[in-house]
């Protein structure tokens, strides 16, 4: 007996699409996989989540508290738990001591360049791996995933020598170029396009006489846009926060925010409240992004994970 049933599943964009599965008994339309067992959370769950949530947010709050006090107040016992009035003095001091103006501009340039390049190249590669037939596709995709397991530590020494050899020593190029395209991004776009882009759409394009580039521009890019949004935000957060290689590659005169922050704390007479003011400057832009796009970022991480 083959009955055909329709099951409504939310896809990655949160829009419900109807999937027809042959050979399954009809189910109620509002069923989701895993939804059948969803009990309501008891008070214990809320208490536990609230405790973890407070733990997650408290260090950020305390960054603000310590950034708005003098160093003496910060190191006093008991430590301050409420913000004070020294925030702008500390911000100004941090700004002067650590080239923060340059650092913010640099971080912005680096993050934007890498995000734009990652989106462009990863979408193209993800499309090729998801929907085009070519020799060696499986092996090449396995190689892409394998590169995810190689930590950057293994190649920094020659990378540093190479960069100074071609005149990029201490320049932003040395931070931008090695991360222009990421294996995670290729994988992420492939997983999305595998499901979101039907072959019929590509065939229809070909029937109309579109060449491959035209298909990418008029069919693949519009379909890929929601996933590109998410990948863009994830990449931006990562490059903004990147520490290890920028710390080795860049110097005090031309740092990114994270590098400047590291150097601020390595100075001879570190002032804790000025350091925390620097930390606050480097964190706030991302928190703003997070408050606005939190839902999308959460959805993106979960979407990338299911098939991972």
């Amino acid at each position: 007996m083959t009955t055909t049933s329709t099951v409504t599943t939310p896809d990655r964009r949160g829009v419900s699409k109807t999937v027809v599965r042959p050979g399954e008994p009809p189910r109620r339309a509002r069923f989701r996989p895993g939804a059948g067992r969803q009990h309501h959370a008891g008070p214990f769950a809320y208490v536990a989540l609230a405790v973890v949530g407070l733990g997650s947010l408290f260090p950020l709050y305390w960054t603000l508290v310590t950034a708005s006090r003098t160093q003496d107040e910060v190191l006093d016992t008991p430590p301050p738990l409420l913000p004070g009035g020294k925030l702008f003095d500390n911000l100004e001091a941090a700004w002067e001591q650590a080239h923060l103006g340059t650092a913010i501009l640099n971080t912005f340039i680096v993050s934007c360049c890498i995000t734009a390049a990652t989106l462009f190249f990863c979408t193209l590669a993800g499309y090729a791996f998801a929907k085009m037939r070519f020799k060696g596709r499986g092996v090449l995709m396995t190689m892409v995933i394998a590169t995810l397991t190689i930590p950057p530590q293994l190649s920094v020494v020659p990378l540093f020598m190479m960069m100074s050899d071609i005149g990029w020593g201490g320049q932003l190029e040395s931070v931008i170029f090695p991360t222009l395209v990421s294996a995670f991004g290729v994988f992420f776009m492939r997983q999305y396009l595998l499901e979101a882009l039907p072959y019929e759409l590509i065939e229809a394009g070909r029937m109309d006489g579109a060449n491959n580039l035209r298909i990418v521009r008029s069919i693949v890019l519009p379909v890929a846009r929601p996933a590109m949004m998410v990948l863009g935000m994830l990449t931006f957060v990562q490059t903004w926060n990147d520490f290890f290689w920028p710390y080795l590659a860049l110097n005090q005169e031309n740092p990114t925010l994270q590098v400047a922050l590291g150097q601020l704390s390595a100075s001879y007479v570190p002032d804790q409240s000025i350091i925390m003011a620097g930390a606050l400057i480097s964190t706030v832009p991302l928190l703003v992004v997070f408050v606005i796009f939190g839902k999308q970022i959460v959805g993106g991480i979960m979407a990338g994970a299911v098939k991972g």
Partner: protein
Amino acid sequence: MATTTPTRGAHGSRPSRRAPKPMTPARQAWRSRLWRFDDKASPYAYIAPFFLVFGAFGLYPLIYTGWIALHRVEMTGLDQMEWVGWANFSTILQDSEFWTAVTNTFVIGVISTVPQLMMALGLAHLLNYKLRASTFWRTVILTPYATSVASAALVFALVFRADGGLLNWVLSFFGAGETNWVNGHWTSNIAIAVIVIWRWTGYNTLIYLAAMQAVPSDLYEAASIDGASRWQQFRNVTIPALRPTILFTIVISTIGSMQLFGEPLLLEGGVNGAQGGTEHQYETLSIYLYNYGWNLGHLGPAAAVAWAMLVLLLLIAAINWLIGRYARKTAA
């Protein structure tokens, strides 16, 4: 569809934009060759950027690291390489500081990964209930992920300070609070593990949550018909279904803990941070590499450290693979 189009005088062979003229066989052959070339070459052109970038800035340096490890290269003269054979390797292998770094990396890796993944599993289970404001909870738990290593390490440096630190002050109400966290071997490793746990638990929670939502509900229905309690369902349905995801997160977290750099560097900051504490009590392999290469300026031994890390990673990968195989066998 061949349409008849009026010929346009002497330039009739020029293709018209509006309505294509029937093509001559030679032209048709040329066009179909062009099409075929487009089809054959395009996929390679689309994936080429990844492999070019990875080849130039990933694979080539990785192999070149091995070559540098056999030479004497100083930060002061990067273009001079002097062959020394295995001397760099024997230098670091005989250095007790190297073994301290290996131990610390391992210890911090275990005490950060294990509690973190267990907490993430529990939290994911809670988030999988029907909750009010579920997006809010997910976002809050993920917030530390948006914080940089540097910022996180600097706040926690204040929390773990010996005198005037927040944690010691809280502990003083319980009669403790005299601990000098960064000076002790275990206590400093715990402090670093706490930073790692704080930053990554939320991320792993979401990965587990996504996997839990993909578990077919029929399994739970069948289990509850058989009279399984909630805990038994979690233990016997959820955990086995999540096994591949759990393995995946273990691999990712292990690789991540091999890379610990910002946390130990900034826990004390300054000269102490750059060598992993006065007694190297919280020095990790990345700090050791950095200290050798960028502070002392000897890039040869630093490259040797990188290769030692590669060997350790392969060892861990092998162990992971064995555990995975064992887990699959016992599951079957």
